[in-house]
Protein backbone atom coordinates (compact mmCIF):
# COMPACT_ATOMS: atom_id res chain seq x y z
CA UNK A 1 0.00 0.00 0.00
CA UNK A 2 1.49 3.31 -1.01
CA UNK A 3 0.52 6.91 -1.38
CA UNK A 4 -1.48 6.13 -4.50
CA UNK A 5 -3.77 3.97 -2.37
CA UNK A 6 -4.65 6.83 -0.04
CA UNK A 7 -8.01 8.30 -0.97
CA UNK A 8 -8.02 12.05 -0.70
CA UNK A 9 -11.00 14.13 0.24
CA UNK A 10 -10.84 17.80 -0.59
CA UNK A 11 -13.87 19.43 1.08
CA UNK A 12 -14.84 22.90 -0.08
CA UNK A 13 -16.52 24.02 3.14
CA UNK A 14 -16.23 23.53 6.88
CA UNK A 15 -19.40 21.47 6.93
CA UNK A 16 -18.07 19.16 4.25
CA UNK A 17 -14.83 18.86 6.15
CA UNK A 18 -16.64 17.87 9.34
CA UNK A 19 -18.69 15.29 7.50
CA UNK A 20 -15.69 13.89 5.67
CA UNK A 21 -13.73 13.64 8.90
CA UNK A 22 -16.48 11.66 10.62
CA UNK A 23 -15.11 10.06 13.76
CA UNK A 24 -11.57 10.49 12.50
CA UNK A 25 -10.80 6.81 12.25
CA UNK A 26 -8.00 6.13 9.74
CA UNK A 27 -8.20 9.71 8.46
CA UNK A 28 -5.12 11.88 8.31
CA UNK A 29 -5.73 15.61 8.14
CA UNK A 30 -3.46 17.57 5.83
CA UNK A 31 -3.55 21.33 6.12
CA UNK A 32 -0.23 23.13 5.67
CA UNK A 33 1.50 19.81 5.27
CA UNK A 34 4.66 20.80 7.10
CA UNK A 35 4.47 17.85 9.49
CA UNK A 36 2.30 15.36 7.66
CA UNK A 37 3.53 15.54 4.06
CA UNK A 38 7.05 14.24 4.80
CA UNK A 39 5.49 11.41 6.80
CA UNK A 40 3.22 10.49 3.89
CA UNK A 41 5.94 10.87 1.28
CA UNK A 42 8.35 8.67 3.21
CA UNK A 43 5.75 6.02 3.87
CA UNK A 44 6.12 6.33 7.64
CA UNK A 45 2.42 7.24 7.67
CA UNK A 46 0.03 5.17 5.57
CA UNK A 47 -3.56 6.15 6.29
CA UNK A 48 -6.58 4.80 4.41
CA UNK A 49 -7.75 8.29 3.61
CA UNK A 50 -6.64 11.85 3.95
CA UNK A 51 -8.54 15.07 4.30
CA UNK A 52 -6.96 18.06 2.60
CA UNK A 53 -8.19 21.19 4.37
CA UNK A 54 -6.69 23.81 2.11
CA UNK A 55 -9.94 24.56 0.31
CA UNK A 56 -12.39 24.18 3.21
CA UNK A 57 -12.52 27.87 4.03
CA UNK A 58 -11.19 27.40 7.54
CA UNK A 59 -8.62 30.15 7.20
CA UNK A 60 -8.80 33.64 8.60
CA UNK A 61 -8.78 35.73 11.78
CA UNK A 62 -11.86 37.59 12.93
CA UNK A 63 -12.55 39.92 15.83
CA UNK A 64 -16.21 39.93 16.64
CA UNK A 65 -18.34 40.34 19.75
CA UNK A 66 -15.34 40.53 21.98
CA UNK A 67 -13.81 37.34 20.65
CA UNK A 68 -10.84 36.70 18.45
CA UNK A 69 -11.34 33.60 16.31
CA UNK A 70 -8.54 32.03 14.31
CA UNK A 71 -9.49 29.46 11.70
CA UNK A 72 -7.62 26.16 11.84
CA UNK A 73 -6.14 26.55 8.38
CA UNK A 74 -4.84 30.06 9.05
CA UNK A 75 -1.13 30.13 8.29
CA UNK A 76 1.15 30.80 11.25
CA UNK A 77 2.66 33.73 9.36
CA UNK A 78 -0.68 35.55 9.73
CA UNK A 79 -0.09 35.61 13.50
CA UNK A 80 3.17 37.47 13.57
CA UNK A 81 1.22 40.67 14.18
CA UNK A 82 -1.31 39.03 16.50
CA UNK A 83 -1.85 39.82 20.15
CA UNK A 84 1.08 39.19 22.45
CA UNK A 85 2.30 36.67 23.50
CA UNK A 86 0.90 34.82 20.49
CA UNK A 87 2.83 37.05 18.10
CA UNK A 88 6.19 36.31 19.70
CA UNK A 89 5.50 32.58 19.67
CA UNK A 90 4.42 32.70 16.03
CA UNK A 91 7.53 34.61 15.00
CA UNK A 92 9.69 31.72 16.09
CA UNK A 93 7.88 28.87 14.38
CA UNK A 94 10.19 27.38 11.76
CA UNK A 95 11.38 29.99 9.32
CA UNK A 96 9.59 32.46 7.09
CA UNK A 97 8.76 29.86 4.44
CA UNK A 98 7.55 27.22 6.86
CA UNK A 99 5.46 29.75 8.79
CA UNK A 100 3.67 30.69 5.60
CA UNK A 101 2.74 27.07 5.09
CA UNK A 102 2.20 25.77 8.62
CA UNK A 103 -1.26 26.27 10.08
CA UNK A 104 -2.61 27.14 13.49
CA UNK A 105 -4.62 23.91 13.56
CA UNK A 106 -1.55 21.85 12.75
CA UNK A 107 0.46 23.56 15.43
CA UNK A 108 -2.25 22.99 18.01
CA UNK A 109 -2.46 19.30 17.08
CA UNK A 110 1.26 18.68 16.98
CA UNK A 111 3.22 16.97 19.70
CA UNK A 112 6.90 17.01 20.51
CA UNK A 113 8.91 14.03 19.38
CA UNK A 114 11.79 12.22 21.08
CA UNK A 115 14.04 14.52 19.09
CA UNK A 116 12.53 17.96 19.13
CA UNK A 117 9.78 20.04 20.72
CA UNK A 118 6.84 21.17 18.65
CA UNK A 119 3.73 23.26 19.08
CA UNK A 120 5.16 26.72 19.78
CA UNK A 121 1.75 28.39 19.63
CA UNK A 122 0.19 26.15 22.25
CA UNK A 123 1.66 27.87 25.31
CA UNK A 124 0.80 31.33 24.06
CA UNK A 125 -2.78 30.30 23.31
CA UNK A 126 -3.15 28.65 26.72
CA UNK A 127 -1.91 31.83 28.36
CA UNK A 128 -4.55 33.77 26.43
CA UNK A 129 -7.18 31.37 27.76
CA UNK A 130 -8.01 30.12 24.28
CA UNK A 131 -10.59 27.49 23.60
CA UNK A 132 -10.65 25.05 20.74
CA UNK A 133 -13.67 24.16 18.65
CA UNK A 134 -13.30 20.72 17.15
CA UNK A 135 -15.25 18.01 15.40
CA UNK A 136 -14.98 14.26 15.57
CA UNK A 137 -16.25 11.45 17.73
CA UNK A 138 -19.28 12.67 19.68
CA UNK A 139 -19.79 15.64 17.39
CA UNK A 140 -18.65 19.23 17.63
CA UNK A 141 -17.45 20.65 20.91
CA UNK A 142 -15.47 23.48 22.44
CA UNK A 143 -13.10 23.25 25.34
CA UNK A 144 -10.11 25.05 26.84
CA UNK A 145 -6.95 24.37 24.87
CA UNK A 146 -5.14 22.83 27.84
CA UNK A 147 -7.99 20.32 28.21
CA UNK A 148 -7.92 19.54 24.50
CA UNK A 149 -4.16 19.01 24.59
CA UNK A 150 -4.30 16.81 27.64
CA UNK A 151 -6.56 14.46 25.75
CA UNK A 152 -4.19 14.18 22.82
CA UNK A 153 -5.00 14.30 19.14
CA UNK A 154 -7.66 12.57 17.11
CA UNK A 155 -10.05 15.44 16.42
CA UNK A 156 -10.51 17.90 13.60
CA UNK A 157 -9.74 21.40 14.86
CA UNK A 158 -12.04 24.00 13.32
CA UNK A 159 -10.87 27.13 15.06
CA UNK A 160 -9.26 28.57 18.16
CA UNK A 161 -10.66 31.60 19.96
CA UNK A 162 -10.00 33.81 22.93
CA UNK A 163 -11.46 36.92 24.56
CA UNK A 164 -10.52 40.11 22.82
CA UNK A 165 -9.83 42.05 25.99
CA UNK A 166 -6.91 44.20 27.07
CA UNK A 167 -4.33 42.21 28.96
CA UNK A 168 -0.68 42.34 29.82
CA UNK A 169 1.45 39.71 28.17
CA UNK A 170 4.95 38.35 28.49
CA UNK A 171 7.05 35.82 26.63
CA UNK A 172 10.45 34.26 27.14
CA UNK A 173 12.07 31.43 25.27
CA UNK A 174 15.40 29.81 24.63
CA UNK A 175 16.63 28.80 21.23
CA UNK A 176 20.11 27.80 20.27
CA UNK A 177 21.95 30.76 18.76
CA UNK A 178 23.48 30.39 15.29
CA UNK A 179 21.00 27.80 14.11
CA UNK A 180 17.46 27.72 12.92
CA UNK A 181 15.08 28.41 15.72
CA UNK A 182 13.85 25.26 17.30
CA UNK A 183 12.37 26.33 20.60
CA UNK A 184 13.85 24.40 23.49
CA UNK A 185 11.57 25.89 26.08
CA UNK A 186 9.14 28.81 25.97
CA UNK A 187 7.05 30.43 28.67
CA UNK A 188 4.05 32.58 27.79
CA UNK A 189 2.23 34.74 30.30
CA UNK A 190 -0.93 36.80 30.14
CA UNK A 191 -2.66 38.75 32.88
CA UNK A 192 -6.16 40.09 32.76
CA UNK A 193 -8.27 41.46 35.59
CA UNK A 194 -5.59 40.32 38.02
CA UNK A 195 -5.70 36.74 36.77
CA UNK A 196 -2.32 35.46 35.63
CA UNK A 197 -2.11 32.56 33.22
CA UNK A 198 1.26 31.00 32.65
CA UNK A 199 1.99 28.22 30.18
CA UNK A 200 5.03 26.48 28.74
CA UNK A 201 6.01 24.72 25.53
CA UNK A 202 8.83 22.20 25.67
CA UNK A 203 8.09 20.70 29.08
CA UNK A 204 5.90 17.82 27.90
CA UNK A 205 4.77 16.41 24.56
CA UNK A 206 2.19 19.19 24.47
CA UNK A 207 2.13 22.58 26.16
CA UNK A 208 0.78 22.83 29.69
CA UNK A 209 -0.68 25.43 32.00
CA UNK A 210 1.81 26.18 34.77
CA UNK A 211 1.25 26.86 38.42
CA UNK A 212 2.50 30.43 38.72
CA UNK A 213 3.66 29.90 42.29
CA UNK A 214 5.50 26.66 41.59
CA UNK A 215 6.15 26.34 37.86
CA UNK A 216 7.87 22.98 38.13
CA UNK A 217 5.03 21.41 40.08
CA UNK A 218 3.64 18.27 38.54
CA UNK A 219 5.90 18.40 35.51
CA UNK A 220 7.80 15.41 34.24
CA UNK A 221 10.39 17.06 32.04
CA UNK A 222 11.93 15.01 29.27
CA UNK A 223 15.22 14.63 27.49
CA UNK A 224 15.27 15.17 23.76
CA UNK A 225 17.93 15.82 21.15
CA UNK A 226 18.07 19.52 21.96
CA UNK A 227 18.11 19.61 25.74
CA UNK A 228 17.91 17.41 28.78
CA UNK A 229 15.30 17.40 31.50
CA UNK A 230 18.01 18.69 33.84
CA UNK A 231 18.65 21.70 31.64
CA UNK A 232 14.96 22.45 31.26
CA UNK A 233 14.58 22.21 35.03
CA UNK A 234 17.27 24.85 35.42
CA UNK A 235 15.76 26.98 32.73
CA UNK A 236 12.07 26.96 33.49
CA UNK A 237 12.12 29.14 36.63
CA UNK A 238 14.45 31.58 34.88
CA UNK A 239 12.19 31.83 31.87
CA UNK A 240 9.14 32.27 34.08
CA UNK A 241 10.93 35.16 35.72
CA UNK A 242 11.84 36.66 32.36
CA UNK A 243 8.32 36.22 30.99
CA UNK A 244 6.87 37.96 34.07
CA UNK A 245 9.38 40.76 33.74
CA UNK A 246 8.35 41.09 30.11
CA UNK A 247 4.70 41.08 31.16
CA UNK A 248 5.21 43.79 33.75
CA UNK A 249 7.21 45.87 31.33
CA UNK A 250 4.43 45.56 28.81
CA UNK A 251 1.50 46.39 31.13
Amino acid at each position, binding site marked *: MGLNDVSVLIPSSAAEAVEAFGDGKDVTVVAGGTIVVPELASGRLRPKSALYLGRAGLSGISRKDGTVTIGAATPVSDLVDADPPLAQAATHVGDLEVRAQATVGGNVCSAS*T*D*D*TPRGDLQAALIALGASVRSAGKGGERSEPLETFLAEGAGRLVLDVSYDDAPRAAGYAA*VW*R*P*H*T*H*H*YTILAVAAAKRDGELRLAATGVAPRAVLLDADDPLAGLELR*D*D*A*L*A*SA*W*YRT*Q*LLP*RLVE*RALTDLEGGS
Partner: protein
Amino acid sequence: MAKHTGRGISAIEYPTGMNQNGDPSQAWIKIKPDGRVDVFSGTADIGNGSKTIQSQIVAETLGVPYDWITYDNSNTDSSPVCTGTFASRATFVAGKAVEKAALSAKQKLLEIAAKELEIAPDDLEVVDGEVIAKGAPQKKIGVPDVAAAATWTHGELITGTGAHLNPYAAIVEPETGKVDSPPHAAISYAACAAEVEVDDETGEVRVVHLWQAFDVGRAINPTLVEGQIQGGALMGLGLGVLEECYPYYPSAEHRGGEFGSYLAPGIKGLPKIDTIIIENPSEAGPYGAKGISEMANNPQPPAIAAAVFDAVGVWVTELPVTPERLLRALEQKEQGPRRDGKWVIFDEDISVNTVAAGESRFRFPVG
Protein backbone atom coordinates in the same frame (compact mmCIF):
# COMPACT_ATOMS: atom_id res chain seq x y z
CA MET B 1 20.22 38.27 32.96
CA ALA B 2 23.90 38.49 33.04
CA LYS B 3 25.84 38.59 29.83
CA HIS B 4 29.59 38.37 29.73
CA THR B 5 31.99 38.74 26.85
CA GLY B 6 35.34 37.13 26.42
CA ARG B 7 38.11 36.48 23.95
CA GLY B 8 40.30 33.48 23.28
CA ILE B 9 42.95 32.50 20.80
CA SER B 10 44.43 29.44 19.15
CA ALA B 11 47.27 28.53 16.81
CA ILE B 12 47.28 25.40 14.69
CA GLU B 13 49.10 23.50 11.97
CA TYR B 14 47.93 20.89 9.49
CA PRO B 15 49.52 18.61 6.90
CA THR B 16 48.78 19.30 3.27
CA GLY B 17 48.48 16.12 1.27
CA MET B 18 47.63 12.77 2.74
CA ASN B 19 49.58 12.24 5.91
CA GLN B 20 52.21 9.61 5.07
CA ASN B 21 51.58 10.47 1.40
CA GLY B 22 51.59 7.72 -1.22
CA ASP B 23 48.55 9.09 -3.02
CA PRO B 24 49.04 10.03 -6.67
CA SER B 25 47.23 12.43 -8.96
CA GLN B 26 47.56 12.51 -12.71
CA ALA B 27 46.29 14.78 -15.48
CA TRP B 28 46.50 15.17 -19.21
CA ILE B 29 45.92 18.01 -21.55
CA LYS B 30 45.24 18.30 -25.25
CA ILE B 31 45.06 21.41 -27.36
CA LYS B 32 42.36 21.67 -30.01
CA PRO B 33 43.14 22.86 -33.56
CA ASP B 34 42.04 26.39 -32.64
CA GLY B 35 44.27 26.58 -29.59
CA ARG B 36 41.61 25.95 -26.99
CA VAL B 37 42.73 23.72 -24.15
CA ASP B 38 41.09 20.58 -22.79
CA VAL B 39 42.17 19.51 -19.31
CA PHE B 40 41.37 16.03 -18.02
CA SER B 41 41.76 15.53 -14.32
CA GLY B 42 40.15 13.05 -11.99
CA THR B 43 39.70 15.48 -9.11
CA ALA B 44 36.16 15.70 -7.76
CA ASP B 45 35.00 19.25 -7.06
CA ILE B 46 33.07 19.04 -3.81
CA GLY B 47 32.49 22.78 -3.75
CA ASN B 48 36.09 23.51 -2.85
CA GLY B 49 36.64 24.99 -6.30
CA SER B 50 39.18 22.57 -7.74
CA LYS B 51 37.72 22.95 -11.25
CA THR B 52 38.49 26.65 -11.05
CA ILE B 53 41.85 26.37 -9.30
CA GLN B 54 43.22 23.69 -11.62
CA SER B 55 41.99 25.64 -14.68
CA GLN B 56 43.78 28.73 -13.39
CA ILE B 57 46.98 26.75 -12.91
CA VAL B 58 46.77 25.46 -16.49
CA ALA B 59 46.04 28.91 -17.91
CA GLU B 60 48.97 30.39 -16.02
CA THR B 61 51.38 27.61 -16.92
CA LEU B 62 50.46 27.50 -20.59
CA GLY B 63 50.20 31.26 -20.89
CA VAL B 64 46.69 31.32 -22.33
CA PRO B 65 43.51 33.07 -21.17
CA TYR B 66 41.48 31.34 -18.45
CA ASP B 67 38.42 31.23 -20.68
CA TRP B 68 40.28 29.10 -23.22
CA ILE B 69 40.29 26.22 -20.74
CA THR B 70 37.77 23.41 -20.78
CA TYR B 71 38.03 21.33 -17.65
CA ASP B 72 36.73 17.78 -17.59
CA ASN B 73 36.72 15.72 -14.43
CA SER B 74 33.49 13.95 -15.26
CA ASN B 75 34.50 10.33 -15.66
CA THR B 76 37.16 7.70 -15.29
CA ASP B 77 37.22 6.75 -18.98
CA SER B 78 38.77 10.04 -20.02
CA SER B 79 40.35 11.28 -16.80
CA PRO B 80 43.38 9.63 -15.23
CA VAL B 81 43.92 8.76 -11.59
CA CYS B 82 43.29 11.20 -8.82
CA THR B 83 43.19 9.51 -5.46
CA GLY B 84 40.56 11.97 -4.40
CA THR B 85 39.50 15.24 -2.91
CA PHE B 86 40.52 14.80 0.70
CA ALA B 87 43.54 15.53 2.85
CA SER B 88 43.66 19.08 1.43
CA ARG B 89 45.31 17.67 -1.67
CA ALA B 90 43.15 18.94 -4.56
CA THR B 91 45.13 22.14 -4.94
CA PHE B 92 48.52 20.91 -3.82
CA VAL B 93 48.89 17.38 -5.18
CA ALA B 94 46.36 17.35 -8.01
CA GLY B 95 47.18 20.98 -8.84
CA LYS B 96 50.80 19.97 -9.16
CA ALA B 97 49.79 17.19 -11.57
CA VAL B 98 47.92 19.60 -13.86
CA GLU B 99 50.81 22.05 -13.65
CA LYS B 100 53.18 19.31 -14.82
CA ALA B 101 50.77 18.29 -17.59
CA ALA B 102 50.57 21.91 -18.71
CA LEU B 103 54.36 22.22 -18.71
CA SER B 104 54.59 19.11 -20.83
CA ALA B 105 51.94 20.36 -23.29
CA LYS B 106 53.68 23.71 -23.41
CA GLN B 107 56.93 22.04 -24.39
CA LYS B 108 55.16 20.36 -27.30
CA LEU B 109 53.51 23.66 -28.22
CA LEU B 110 56.86 25.40 -28.27
CA GLU B 111 58.37 22.66 -30.42
CA ILE B 112 55.69 23.20 -33.08
CA ALA B 113 55.97 26.98 -32.76
CA ALA B 114 59.75 26.63 -33.18
CA LYS B 115 59.20 24.97 -36.52
CA GLU B 116 56.84 27.73 -37.62
CA LEU B 117 59.05 30.59 -36.40
CA GLU B 118 62.35 28.85 -37.07
CA ILE B 119 63.52 29.77 -33.59
CA ALA B 120 64.69 27.26 -31.00
CA PRO B 121 62.01 26.26 -28.45
CA ASP B 122 64.16 27.42 -25.57
CA ASP B 123 64.15 30.93 -27.01
CA LEU B 124 60.35 31.11 -27.01
CA GLU B 125 57.79 31.92 -24.35
CA VAL B 126 54.00 32.02 -24.25
CA VAL B 127 52.32 35.24 -23.19
CA ASP B 128 48.59 35.90 -23.32
CA GLY B 129 47.95 33.25 -25.92
CA GLU B 130 50.86 34.11 -28.16
CA VAL B 131 54.20 32.40 -28.63
CA ILE B 132 56.82 35.12 -28.59
CA ALA B 133 60.55 35.11 -29.20
CA LYS B 134 62.36 36.05 -26.01
CA GLY B 135 63.87 39.47 -26.46
CA ALA B 136 62.25 39.94 -29.87
CA PRO B 137 58.55 40.32 -29.22
CA GLN B 138 57.78 41.25 -32.83
CA LYS B 139 58.53 37.64 -33.75
CA LYS B 140 55.46 35.78 -32.63
CA ILE B 141 52.70 33.40 -33.53
CA GLY B 142 49.34 32.97 -31.87
CA VAL B 143 48.71 29.75 -29.97
CA PRO B 144 45.69 29.08 -32.27
CA ASP B 145 47.98 29.25 -35.28
CA VAL B 146 50.46 26.90 -33.64
CA ALA B 147 47.66 24.47 -32.85
CA ALA B 148 46.36 24.69 -36.42
CA ALA B 149 49.84 24.10 -37.81
CA ALA B 150 50.29 21.11 -35.53
CA THR B 151 47.04 19.63 -36.75
CA TRP B 152 47.01 20.44 -40.44
CA THR B 153 50.67 20.93 -41.33
CA HIS B 154 52.74 18.76 -39.04
CA GLY B 155 50.28 15.97 -38.31
CA GLU B 156 50.86 16.27 -34.57
CA LEU B 157 48.70 16.41 -31.46
CA ILE B 158 49.76 18.91 -28.84
CA THR B 159 49.29 17.10 -25.63
CA GLY B 160 50.92 16.71 -22.27
CA THR B 161 50.66 14.50 -19.25
CA GLY B 162 51.62 15.04 -15.66
CA ALA B 163 51.58 13.12 -12.44
CA HIS B 164 52.45 13.95 -8.88
CA LEU B 165 53.21 11.58 -6.08
CA ASN B 166 54.80 12.28 -2.75
CA PRO B 167 56.43 9.02 -1.79
CA TYR B 168 54.91 7.03 1.03
CA ALA B 169 56.55 7.75 4.34
CA ALA B 170 57.03 4.43 6.09
CA ILE B 171 57.06 4.24 9.86
CA VAL B 172 60.40 2.60 10.41
CA GLU B 173 60.26 2.52 14.19
CA PRO B 174 56.77 1.62 15.33
CA GLU B 175 57.82 2.04 18.96
CA THR B 176 58.78 5.69 18.47
CA GLY B 177 56.81 6.66 15.38
CA LYS B 178 59.95 7.59 13.45
CA VAL B 179 59.43 7.84 9.68
CA ASP B 180 61.87 7.44 6.80
CA SER B 181 60.83 10.63 4.96
CA PRO B 182 58.55 13.63 5.52
CA PRO B 183 55.01 12.28 5.98
CA HIS B 184 53.39 15.37 4.47
CA ALA B 185 53.62 17.35 1.26
CA ALA B 186 53.69 20.57 3.23
CA ILE B 187 52.40 21.91 6.53
CA SER B 188 50.02 24.86 6.71
CA TYR B 189 49.53 27.17 9.66
CA ALA B 190 46.78 29.33 11.08
CA ALA B 191 45.84 31.33 14.13
CA CYS B 192 42.46 32.46 15.30
CA ALA B 193 40.80 34.71 17.83
CA ALA B 194 37.21 34.42 18.94
CA GLU B 195 34.96 36.78 20.83
CA VAL B 196 31.91 35.37 22.54
CA GLU B 197 28.96 36.56 24.54
CA VAL B 198 27.82 34.21 27.29
CA ASP B 199 24.52 34.29 29.15
CA ASP B 200 25.31 32.78 32.54
CA GLU B 201 21.65 32.13 33.34
CA THR B 202 20.72 30.15 30.25
CA GLY B 203 24.19 28.96 29.32
CA GLU B 204 23.86 30.26 25.77
CA VAL B 205 27.09 31.10 23.98
CA ARG B 206 26.95 33.45 21.04
CA VAL B 207 30.03 33.76 18.88
CA VAL B 208 30.27 37.42 18.00
CA HIS B 209 33.50 37.73 16.08
CA LEU B 210 36.10 35.43 14.56
CA TRP B 211 39.47 36.61 13.32
CA GLN B 212 41.54 34.16 11.35
CA ALA B 213 45.00 34.34 9.84
CA PHE B 214 45.99 31.54 7.46
CA ASP B 215 49.27 30.92 5.75
CA VAL B 216 48.00 29.59 2.43
CA GLY B 217 51.40 29.43 0.77
CA ARG B 218 50.06 31.18 -2.29
CA ALA B 219 46.46 32.14 -2.98
CA ILE B 220 45.80 30.77 -6.48
CA ASN B 221 42.41 32.48 -6.28
CA PRO B 222 42.16 34.74 -3.22
CA THR B 223 38.35 34.82 -3.27
CA LEU B 224 38.07 31.06 -3.34
CA VAL B 225 40.56 30.60 -0.53
CA GLU B 226 38.67 33.18 1.53
CA GLY B 227 35.53 31.15 0.84
CA GLN B 228 37.20 28.05 2.23
CA ILE B 229 38.34 29.87 5.35
CA GLN B 230 34.94 31.46 5.94
CA GLY B 231 33.11 28.20 5.35
CA GLY B 232 35.53 26.48 7.68
CA ALA B 233 34.96 29.18 10.28
CA LEU B 234 31.26 28.45 10.48
CA MET B 235 31.86 24.73 10.57
CA GLY B 236 34.33 25.38 13.39
CA LEU B 237 31.65 27.41 15.13
CA GLY B 238 29.38 24.39 14.76
CA LEU B 239 32.01 22.14 16.33
CA GLY B 240 32.54 24.66 19.07
CA VAL B 241 29.02 25.37 20.24
CA LEU B 242 26.38 23.50 18.26
CA GLU B 243 26.94 20.15 16.66
CA GLU B 244 26.93 16.66 18.12
CA CYS B 245 25.55 13.39 16.80
CA TYR B 246 25.11 11.96 20.29
CA PRO B 247 23.73 14.63 22.60
CA TYR B 248 24.07 12.26 25.56
CA TYR B 249 27.46 10.82 24.63
CA PRO B 250 28.57 8.15 25.23
CA SER B 251 24.93 7.05 25.21
CA ALA B 252 23.46 6.74 21.72
CA GLU B 253 20.04 7.95 22.86
CA HIS B 254 18.22 10.81 21.17
CA ARG B 255 20.33 10.73 18.05
CA GLY B 256 17.87 12.51 15.81
CA GLY B 257 17.20 12.10 12.11
CA GLU B 258 15.76 15.55 11.62
CA PHE B 259 17.40 18.77 10.59
CA GLY B 260 15.82 20.27 13.69
CA SER B 261 17.63 17.87 15.98
CA TYR B 262 21.08 18.25 14.45
CA LEU B 263 22.32 21.79 14.82
CA ALA B 264 24.21 22.76 11.70
CA PRO B 265 24.92 26.50 11.74
CA GLY B 266 22.43 28.73 9.99
CA ILE B 267 22.68 32.27 8.74
CA LYS B 268 20.99 33.92 11.71
CA GLY B 269 23.32 35.75 14.03
CA LEU B 270 26.24 35.24 11.69
CA PRO B 271 29.35 36.43 13.53
CA LYS B 272 31.65 38.98 12.04
CA ILE B 273 34.36 36.99 10.28
CA ASP B 274 37.70 38.60 9.47
CA THR B 275 40.06 36.69 7.24
CA ILE B 276 43.75 37.44 6.91
CA ILE B 277 45.69 35.65 4.20
CA ILE B 278 49.42 35.23 4.65
CA GLU B 279 51.52 33.96 1.76
CA ASN B 280 54.70 32.10 2.69
CA PRO B 281 55.10 30.04 -0.47
CA SER B 282 55.62 26.31 -0.15
CA GLU B 283 58.61 25.08 -2.09
CA ALA B 284 56.80 22.06 -3.44
CA GLY B 285 53.25 23.27 -4.08
CA PRO B 286 51.95 24.58 -7.40
CA TYR B 287 52.98 28.24 -7.53
CA GLY B 288 53.77 27.94 -3.82
CA ALA B 289 50.24 27.02 -2.76
CA LYS B 290 49.42 24.92 0.28
CA GLY B 291 46.12 23.25 1.02
CA ILE B 292 44.11 24.82 3.84
CA SER B 293 40.50 23.82 3.31
CA GLU B 294 40.40 21.14 5.95
CA MET B 295 42.24 22.96 8.69
CA ALA B 296 39.83 25.84 8.16
CA ASN B 297 37.52 24.36 10.80
CA ASN B 298 40.23 23.49 13.30
CA PRO B 299 41.20 26.71 15.10
CA GLN B 300 37.76 28.03 16.10
CA PRO B 301 36.64 25.44 18.69
CA PRO B 302 39.59 25.96 21.06
CA ALA B 303 39.53 29.73 20.55
CA ILE B 304 35.81 29.78 21.33
CA ALA B 305 36.21 27.58 24.41
CA ALA B 306 39.06 29.78 25.65
CA ALA B 307 36.88 32.84 25.07
CA VAL B 308 34.15 31.22 27.17
CA PHE B 309 36.70 30.83 29.97
CA ASP B 310 37.67 34.47 29.58
CA ALA B 311 33.99 35.43 29.82
CA VAL B 312 32.79 33.32 32.74
CA GLY B 313 35.83 31.54 34.18
CA VAL B 314 35.02 27.92 33.35
CA TRP B 315 36.73 25.52 30.99
CA VAL B 316 34.28 23.45 28.99
CA THR B 317 36.41 20.69 27.55
CA GLU B 318 33.71 18.51 26.03
CA LEU B 319 32.55 19.88 22.71
CA PRO B 320 30.28 21.42 21.79
CA VAL B 321 29.97 24.02 24.54
CA THR B 322 26.23 23.55 24.90
CA PRO B 323 24.13 25.63 27.28
CA GLU B 324 23.80 22.56 29.48
CA ARG B 325 27.54 21.86 29.67
CA LEU B 326 28.15 25.49 30.46
CA LEU B 327 25.58 25.60 33.27
CA ARG B 328 26.96 22.39 34.74
CA ALA B 329 30.49 23.82 34.60
CA LEU B 330 29.31 27.02 36.27
CA GLU B 331 27.78 24.98 39.09
CA GLN B 332 31.24 23.57 39.85
CA LYS B 333 33.15 26.74 39.15
CA GLU B 334 34.47 27.19 42.67
CA GLN B 335 36.15 23.79 42.72
CA GLY B 336 38.93 24.56 40.24
CA PRO B 337 41.67 22.05 39.39
CA ARG B 338 43.03 19.67 42.03
CA ARG B 339 46.60 20.38 43.06
CA ASP B 340 48.83 17.54 44.12
CA GLY B 341 52.47 18.52 44.53
CA LYS B 342 53.43 20.11 41.26
CA TRP B 343 50.50 18.49 39.48
CA VAL B 344 47.54 20.65 38.47
CA ILE B 345 44.77 18.27 37.50
CA PHE B 346 41.68 19.31 35.59
CA ASP B 347 38.73 17.17 34.45
CA GLU B 348 39.12 14.17 36.73
CA ASP B 349 35.45 13.36 36.33
CA ILE B 350 35.79 12.51 32.64
CA SER B 351 39.21 10.87 32.78
CA VAL B 352 39.56 7.21 31.83
CA ASN B 353 40.64 6.65 35.40
CA THR B 354 37.13 7.30 36.66
CA VAL B 355 35.59 4.37 34.81
CA ALA B 356 38.35 2.04 33.66
CA ALA B 357 39.07 -1.03 35.71
CA GLY B 358 42.29 -1.03 37.73
CA GLU B 359 44.16 -3.31 35.37
CA SER B 360 43.03 -1.49 32.23
CA ARG B 361 45.65 -0.41 29.73
CA PHE B 362 43.56 2.70 29.24
CA ARG B 363 44.74 4.50 32.31
CA PHE B 364 46.45 7.83 32.40
CA PRO B 365 49.22 8.71 34.84
CA VAL B 366 48.20 11.69 36.90
CA GLY B 367 49.37 12.90 40.30
